[in-house]
């Protein structure tokens, strides 16, 4: 049997053998599907969360955030998920922060939580008012998406905020127009609306007469101060200085945000890993039992193949290919099912575990899928290796007459 024709023939034999007992094959395929799907979803989540954190922190553009003491967790949730927050501290802190050696730039922001919309069905949103004079984090995106400053009634919206450019939006009774939309980051900025701080003060003043509930921001107060450093590596040290020199504030560093996301991701993986390992063990045992049974059923067939001139290697290859084929097929189905089910419940998972997510690029996604399918095929072949090896040790004559 020439090798070039033999291999496709063995693949065909492997595929036909799986159809001999479809019920048994489907049970094993479902097991592989479950392991491969969960593993693929776990890998996708890890890649996507890391991609989102990198993109989001690059977009944030600040090395530190100074917030009122006790607001660190709320800030983390707002930055990562866009959950609306509103807390305030004395604006005079800005001067104290800017005077600390090593600080290159400092700019205040005001956070406002919108009221529930009376129109179906937009929920609450977070508004961020920035100071156009000192700002160094919003203006670079403005130059990129708009190339001009915002008019007093204009806003710039995160990627997930509904509406088209030019569409009206009403907050606390004041009308605004969407001037531009930002690229997705996978972080809370996608759910946020940005506008100049002057517009926020004007909106607060008008809310007394125009809104169902007035917007109360204490005079001269701000929510956070974004800080740029001359040397970003000094962030932990300068954060300690700020906290020790200025009372009533906490400092959030980019490293803390990354660490917080990493801890939340660990929390999710703590649930996923035991599922993957548990099902993997069950599937491996199923594979060994299945192929031991197949080897027993086929002893006569393999003996005939050997008697007709097939080598030991070809006889082993026939069984291993069948196992690899089944593993690969289950792996491919698992990758597709994992991608589809994860896609459906992505937002729910991310919201439950406070995780940001941005789909990785196509190359990474395809590489992950190929790796999972290859591992499933390899795992199947390895699980079938022992029964296959035992079968080929039989003498062809004994194998034919074994049953």
């Amino acid at each position, binding site marked *: 049997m020439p090798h070039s024709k033999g291999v496709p023939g063995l693949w065909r034999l492997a595929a036909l053998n799986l159809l001999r007992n*479809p019920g048994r094959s489907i049970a094993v395929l479902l097991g592989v599907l479950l392991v491969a799907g969960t593993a693929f979803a776990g890998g996708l989540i890890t890649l996507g969360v890391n991609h989102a954190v990198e993109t989001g922190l690059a977009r944030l553009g600040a090395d530190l955030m100074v917030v009122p003491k006790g607001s660190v967790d709320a800030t983390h949730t707002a930055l990562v998920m866009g959950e609306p927050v509103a807390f305030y501290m004395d604006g005079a802190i800005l001067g104290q922060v800017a005077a600390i050696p090593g600080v290159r730039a400092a700019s205040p922001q005001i956070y406002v939580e919108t009221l*529930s919309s009376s129109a*179906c*069905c937009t929920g609450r949103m977070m508004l961020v008012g920035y100071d156009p004079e000192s700002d160094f984090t919003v203006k670079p995106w403005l130059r990129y998406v708009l190339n001009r400053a915002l008019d007093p009634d204009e806003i710039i919206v995160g990627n997930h905020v509904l509406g088209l450019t030019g569409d009206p939006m009403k907050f606390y009774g004041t009308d605004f127009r969407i001037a531009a939309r930002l690229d997705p980051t996978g972080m809370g900025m996608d759910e946020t609306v940005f506008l100049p701080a002057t517009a926020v003060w004007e909106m607060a003043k008008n809310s007394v007469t125009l809104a169902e509930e007035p917007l109360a921001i204490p005079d001269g107060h701000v929510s956070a101060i974004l800080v740029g450093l001359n040397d970003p590596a000094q962030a932990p040290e300068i954060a300690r200085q700020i906290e020790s020199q200025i009372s009533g504030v906490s400092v959030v560093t980019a490293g803390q945000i990354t660490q917080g996301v990493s801890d939340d991701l660990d929390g999710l993986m703590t649930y996923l890993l035991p599922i993957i390992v548990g099902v993997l063990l069950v599937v491996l045992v199923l594979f060994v039992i299945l192929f031991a049974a197949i080897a027993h059923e086929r002893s006569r067939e393999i003996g005939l193949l050997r008697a007709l001139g097939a080598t030991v290697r070809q006889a082993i290859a026939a069984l291993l290919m069948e196992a690899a084929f089944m593993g690969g097929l289950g792996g491919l189905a698992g990758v597709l099912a994992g991608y*589809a089910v994860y896609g459906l419940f992505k*937002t729910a998972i991310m919201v439950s575990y406070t995780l940001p997510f941005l789909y990785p690029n196509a190359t990474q996604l395809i590489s992950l899928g190929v790796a999972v399918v290859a591992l499933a095929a390899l795992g199947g072949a390895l699980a079938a290796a022992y029964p296959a090896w035992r079968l080929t040790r039989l003498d062809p004559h004994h194998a034919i007459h074994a049953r």
Partner: protein
Amino acid sequence: MNFLSRNWRGLLFIFLGLFTVFGAHYFLDTCADAGHFMHMGDKEIHMGCTWTERGVIGVGGLVAFMGLAMLIARESWRGLSLAAAGAGALMILIPLYLIPTCAMPNMPCNLSLKPGSLLLGGLVLVAGLISMIRFRKLDGAEAR
């Protein structure tokens, strides 16, 4: 041939239909389940997703009824399977186009009811299409 082998189609659709009805009612959240309402003066009004849920529950009930019909009129298995696949497609179309859920992606209905309905609809659609195939070992000579 035992009861399960003879009636697997009917039992499968009764299970999927009831799973949809109870799943949508007790486990898949609408905005109202999470305490979100529209306000019109002093009145609290249900958001659109409440009607999405009722639509999905209705179609789930229909799927369970088709399963029951398959048990009673077994000769109609192929037509009823096709109809069940159509009901699965309807379960997908309801939250997407026919009675859409709320607009903001992070609203409770979009985190729970919508993906759950799409998954259940997909399962019913695939089960309906597979059920149209005659399986020699399971169906024997009875199903033609």
